[in-house]
């Protein structure tokens, strides 16, 4: 079974949602970003999305853009990403790469799959790659047993939802709000409706929610209806504000508590 699905189902068996933390490699530098990922794991993250820096992050809001720009300028590349993957794995969490498509295509799809598997990565989340365009990645992930996580959105039709979820392995990424990454005051009903619609066709596959979660309370709210809670910008904010790995650890602890007090009042 897939590494991602296993860890998320393990959380479910404990009566809670999984906590999935996103951090980009290379902000403020490669070593510090890896230390921050390890701190996220120590604070309670079950999965770390290891972000590949990209010059044109069309789906990201200002917080992630600001951090990623630094990493891009410093020339951070896939070799650094693979090192982060190995570090997260050694820290005891499941690493999954989060990458816009061009860095993977440039590195070579088969080479990426081979090297990611060798580094202990579970697979990849590809925010600007839809299954319709993913033939090379579908076959490379099939060959190497890697997970492949595609996104679904509130605007996805039922037919697209079914087709996209059928191509996913590991979990389904429900992009809860229409918009870019970043903290929001409310997560909104759209997330829960999207999760419900996804569950109708997802079978055993976990459905995790991203975009907009930044606090323990929001994590608890989302954990009430989703299998996993994805947090990105709030983690990156810790680093942008200079709170470093310690800030990341504290945030992880708050969010990890959030995903554990959900089911009751939800």
């Amino acid at each position, binding site marked *: 079974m897939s590494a991602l699905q296993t860890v998320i189902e393990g959380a479910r068996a404990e009566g809670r949602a999984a906590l999935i933390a996103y951090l980009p490699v290379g902000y403020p530098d490669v070593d510090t970003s890896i230390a921050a990922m390890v701190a996220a794991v120590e604070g309670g993250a079950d999965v770390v999305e290891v972000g590949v*820096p*990209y*010059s*044109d*992050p*069309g*789906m990201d*809001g*200002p917080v992630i*853009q600001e951090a990623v*720009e630094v990493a*891009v300028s410093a*020339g*951070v*590349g*896939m070799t650094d990403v693979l090192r982060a993957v190995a570090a997260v794995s050694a820290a005891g969490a499941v690493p999954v790469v989060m990458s816009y*498509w*061009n*860095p*993977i*295509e*440039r*590195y070579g799809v088969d080479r990426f799959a081979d090297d990611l598997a060798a580094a202990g990565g579970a697979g990849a989340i590809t*925010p*600007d*790659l*839809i299954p*319709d*365009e993913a033939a090379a990645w579908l076959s490379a992930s099939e060959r190497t047993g890697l997970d492949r996580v*595609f*996104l*679904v*959105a*509130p*605007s*996805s*039709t039922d037919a*697209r939802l079914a087709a*996209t979820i059928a191509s996913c392995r590991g979990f389904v990424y429900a*992009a809860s709000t*229409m*918009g*870019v990454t970043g903290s929001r005051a409310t997560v909104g009903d759209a997330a829960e409706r999207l999760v419900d619609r996804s569950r109708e066709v997802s079978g055993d596959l976990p459905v995790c929610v991203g975009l907009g979660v930044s606090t323990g309370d929001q994590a608890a709210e989302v954990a009430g209806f989703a299998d996993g809670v994805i947090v990105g910008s709030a983690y990156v904010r810790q680093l942008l504000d200079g709170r470093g790995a310690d800030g990341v650890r504290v945030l992880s602890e708050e969010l990890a508590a959030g995903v554990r007090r959900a089911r009751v009042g939800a």
Partner: protein
Amino acid sequence: MTALHPAAPDVRDLTARPEWPDATGHFGPYGGRFVPEALIAALDELSEAYEAMRVDPEFIAEYARLQRDYTGRPNPVTEVPKFAEHCGGARVLLKREDLNHTGSHKINNVLGQALLTKRIGKSRVIAETGAGQHGVATATAAALMGLSCTVYMGEEDTRRQALNVARMRLLGAEVIPVTTGSRTLKDAINEAFRDWVTNVETTNYVFGTVAGPHPFPAMVRDFQRVIGDEARAQVLEREGRLPDAVLACVGGGSNAIGIFTAFVPDADVRLIGLEAGGDGVETGRHASSITGGDPGVLHGARSYLLQDANGQTIESHSISAGLDYPGVGPEHAYLHDMGRAEYRPITDSEAMEAFALLCRTEGIIPAIESAHALAGAMKVGQELGPDALLLVNLSGRGDKDVETASAWFGLGEHGAPTDEDARAVEAGRGADPGPGLDEEQHATEGAVANHEAVAGQDAGEQA
């Protein structure tokens, strides 16, 4: 004559198309859709509505009426014999897109997309712009059709093209300077996509070129092909033959696709795209995506782009804001790979030399973008010789570029720019202005010298 070739310049047949792209927007290995899932529904809606609209007789009539009564089509083909003396004696015809309302070919596309916006019931349009021509055209169409309009423009470009920023604001559009990344067109596109994914229920993205995710490359081509449809018929009518070569500048590539499309089936007509060579492709400071780039994915489609070993987009460089883009439309990539079109770089200096030459020899101030195509004609004419007939797309007029040109040539009331003048430095001060214009301001050959001319204020007394 096939269905691809309307018999007269005023007949535009949006129902006739090349056999590409396929149903999912692929031009061979290029094109497609590399966007977040959240945008797929909107792109599907656009595709479906557009496919219905383009064969709807009511739309065809309305679009033709706007082209005629609002844009001023058909615009003429102008022969430029004095300019052609610098093109190896080849004859040169210009397709005058610069005479369109708003000053460039961009209006052809936005009128079509604005009609489509109304058809799908959206009330707001957004657009990206580099030189500002597409932004001005979109703001114009929005004003005409009662749509609210937001234009994203790199902060760097708002400075280079201040006149167009003012034009957009006069037309009622909101102009948002983009301060991320390189602060140019590529970053404006990123911001526009972010706006679209957030506001897709009310907002349509009026994309300005033949790049981006499907259906934009095919749709924008269909709206721009009027250039070549008209020009082909006009050249046939006046010359009784087709041109030997058709030349156009290529940034994203919409004016080039617009003039190429009608000629694609004419195997004997060479199609030549001129990319922005900046300081020279060999210097790394250029915007020649095909000549100096590799295939990859940017802004929703696979095509050629400027990228580093990590797949990061490399910032492009060009004196022309409208060509200063590290990508290119997927159809150009496809035409290149199949050998149907050829692409060459033109440096800033070569473009500015051609710019000055056309001003001086023919009394036409071209856009700096279009000057790249003119510089291409100077080279290709030398290669083909005096029997050649060249058709050049003069895609826009140069009013917006007067400040850049003044800095380049050291004109203007403040004298030559200093090193402290950032614009001058950027424009490459100190470069040889070329034979078209020199700093001593020699009069045009054969013209009345200044001391012989009658000053404007005295003219009435002698009349």
